[in-house]
């Protein structure tokens, strides 16, 4: 069957078996390996992507199910060398350690700030509660999303994108 969708703003399509999971399609057919698989049971959230802007777990969706829809993966967050406010927040607040949960966490954070630009800590914790992190204990992930919220609010007043050079993230 043909799976066709817009991934990070680009039309992509491929012939796949109907049973191919969206996570596998992104990783194998499109070589977008930033979407990770941690559990296969929709429990850990490492495979989270945005489907028309809403976080979904791509290990329990079929690629053919999302035909015609918009998918955003971690590879779609930065604009060229410029990291998104959420990415900058994770760097500045040490919101990542091994990095395996990070794409899912950042996508959930991005979606949250789209619908709620000024979330409380409780709202952030609830939003990311479908995603497991084994390294950070979540405190710095919360701070990272708060950092992004503040940056976005400041940018809304005086637009000036934060530039982060390619490479080391420094």
């Amino acid at each position: 069957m043909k799976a066709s969708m817009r991934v990070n703003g680009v039309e992509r399509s491929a012939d796949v078996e109907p049973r191919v999971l969206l996570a596998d399609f992104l990783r194998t057919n499109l070589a977008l390996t930033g979407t990770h698989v941690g559990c296969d049971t929709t429990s850990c959230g490492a495979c989270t992507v945005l489907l028309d802007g809403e976080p979904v777990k791509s290990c329990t969706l079929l690629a053919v199910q999302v035909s015609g829809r918009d998918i955003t993966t971690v590879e779609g967050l930065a604009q060229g060398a410029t990291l998104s406010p959420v990415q900058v927040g994770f760097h500045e607040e040490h919101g990542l350690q091994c990095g395996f949960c990070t794409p899912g966490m950042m996508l959930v954070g991005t979606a949250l700030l789209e619908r709620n630009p000024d979330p409380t800590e409780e709202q952030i914790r609830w939003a990311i509660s479908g995603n497991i992190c084994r390294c950070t204990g979540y405190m710095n992930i919360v701070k990272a999303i708060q950092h992004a919220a503040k940056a976005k609010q400041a940018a809304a007043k005086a637009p000036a994108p934060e530039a982060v050079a390619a490479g080391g993230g420094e």
Partner: protein
Amino acid sequence: MSSTMHMHGGIGESIKRKEDGRFLRGKGNYIDDLTLPGMLHMAILRSPHAHARIKSVDTNAAAAKPGVIAVVTGELMAQHKLAWMPTLSYDTQAVLATDKVRFQGQEVAAVIAETKYQAEDARDSIEVDYEVLRAVISPDGAKAEGAPLIRDEKEGQKDNHIYHWESGDKAKTQAAFAKAAKVVRLHTFYPRCHPAPLETCGCVADVNPATGKATIYMTSQAPHAIRTVFALVTGLPEQNIRVISPDIGGGFGNKVPVYPGYVVATAASLLIGRPVKWIEDRTENLISTGFARDYHMTGDLAVDDKGKMTALRVHLDSDNGAFFSDAQPSKFKAGLFHIVTGSYDIPTAHITADGYYTNKAPGGVAYRCSFRVTEASYLIERLVTNAALELGIDQAEFRQKNFIQPEQFPYTSATGWIYDSGDYPKAMDVALDKLGYAELKKDVEARRKKGEVTGIGIASFTEVVGAGHGADFDILGLRMFDSAELRVHPTGKALLRMGTKSQGQGHETTFAQIVAEELGIPASDVAVEEGDTDTAPYGLGTYASRSTPVAGAATAMVSRKLREKARLIAAHLLEAADEDLAWERGKFYVKGSPDRAKTIQEIAFAAYSNLPEGMEAGLEGVHYYDPPNMTYPFGTYAVVVDVDKGTGQVKVKRMVAVDDCGVRINPMIVEGQIHGGLTEGFGIAFMELITFDADGNCIGSNFMDYLLPTAWETPKFEMGETVTPSPHHPLGAKGVGESATVGSPAAYVNAVIDALSPYGITNIDMPVTSDKVWAALRSKGVME
């Protein structure tokens, strides 16, 4: 722009991590992200039974499935003498079962196919005929009369007993107990749990048929040791084996051992001549690899009439699963459990331990812990709180009264450990201060009078990490040193390679900071590489909080070596005597004439262009560091809980964590490590459990049964610190990766027990779930 771009990045600076960039962009390089030309995929068939004799394995239907290249059985492996492999604890372990299966999830056969989906499809077509045998699921079951013999293939093995091990002084301890005013006993089970890193284990084995070179990409915390083990197991010459650990999505001990999947994938690649990828799914990870704990412990603490501890006696039964494949130093059968006297000046102790085979997964690893230190710390800290409650002494005061005092260091413990340094009363004071302990105690009393169930838990742990001095610590004979190789390029930029392997700990930043401090090259100019055995110097790897104590020390030492050569070059450039030069981070200058100076960058260029007569070119070096002693991080954790009498639900209201890990190289990273450990400790205390039914079926085989803390239930942490530098580490650092997982479970559980103590409840085994608390309260007649 990053806030730390222009910082030098020396010791003590919280610079942002150098490794973040690729992870933030989804460009990490994890094992499953790797695709090689012609690569095949492997799926493993596992035993559904805990204990069964294999009568036959029929692979015909599987072999005929689309895309299948080969089906590997134990019989095929046996033809190549690879059906069994040696373990890290001098036992043997089945690679693919030939005679019996001995735990649920044991590897029986493997399918190699063109795609992952095809391999998994064909796996389901393998027919295995089993004769099911009775399963043994606990040490008590293992020693029961008439228990089935699990390791019947092992010559001379007549029962399920693996080892007996002792430490301390039996006679002296007995005498002390005979004189005790009070003996407090705690029997507690530290249940089986699992490190469960978010990335499972896996490998891509690529044996080149033309050259014979085996390149094995593997999620390994210890790639160099794995290379040597592979050479011993397969007979391949070691120079033809290259192990590469790519980015690792968390380890926590799970990725130390050699697992059968690695061996089968490598054998398959060798036989087929194409690369073979094997990636565990989550269930495979939880049921077959790297479990932790499973210690049944009984501790007796003797106390005199003045409230001083006089002796400790511990017996433990260890459930090691079907093969004794614990990853730990050879000398110590029960790991470093004999640190069990903890932070207390206990004059004598006697520890006995017995290990047993059971029909459960093998591969005991230290889940974010230095070889069973967690079990030891849990037992002593639970026992001390129980003793305080029983004696009616405040648990903080009881600890203060029995702490090893700062002036007693170096302190030799009753079981022979030489504690390098510590200031336990100070860490306790900082914690109690942060907590507002005196006021809080009054509040607890007042609320209890109103019928509320609330309590405070304390744990003042001492760890022993940084294995270790080579005379006592080895794995399969390999001394547990570690290494650092430093190359300074002509432009003054540097490449540092180590024998360790980061799994999220931030080595690329922390170790660059050591070079920045010691050699004056900014951390941003130091690239750090680990994990490729063809390029990095040999080392024993990253676990047991040993990277900073051992490889960090090696990094400091190699930097100092290069600094000494730099001094000679600077003297030549400045036309001064080398003893007339002084060092200031980043440059040598002539004493008294600070303007006459050469920067490390200028010196680096001269090392390749303008050398003193007779000096070898280059500015490179390597150091292998064998530590003179272990390091002993410590701290005090304090927890406040409320318990709902009606439901048994425990709510952690506060968690104060005061850690002393010596000198902190990057405080931001150190705090991140502690946050993570406190969270895993919280999970272990309240949620995480691998258990088995009577037939040996594993319960806890996916993330819906094996519960991990999310942001919703994880408490917020209040952090504090003291700094007592290690006297023998070149930087005074001690290692911190595991302190919080070691110390926190007892603090959480002590808080619950303190809350329940008015009802006469003295123990609930972890995980302390609502149903257990509810049942305990009901058993004491609390019916609300």
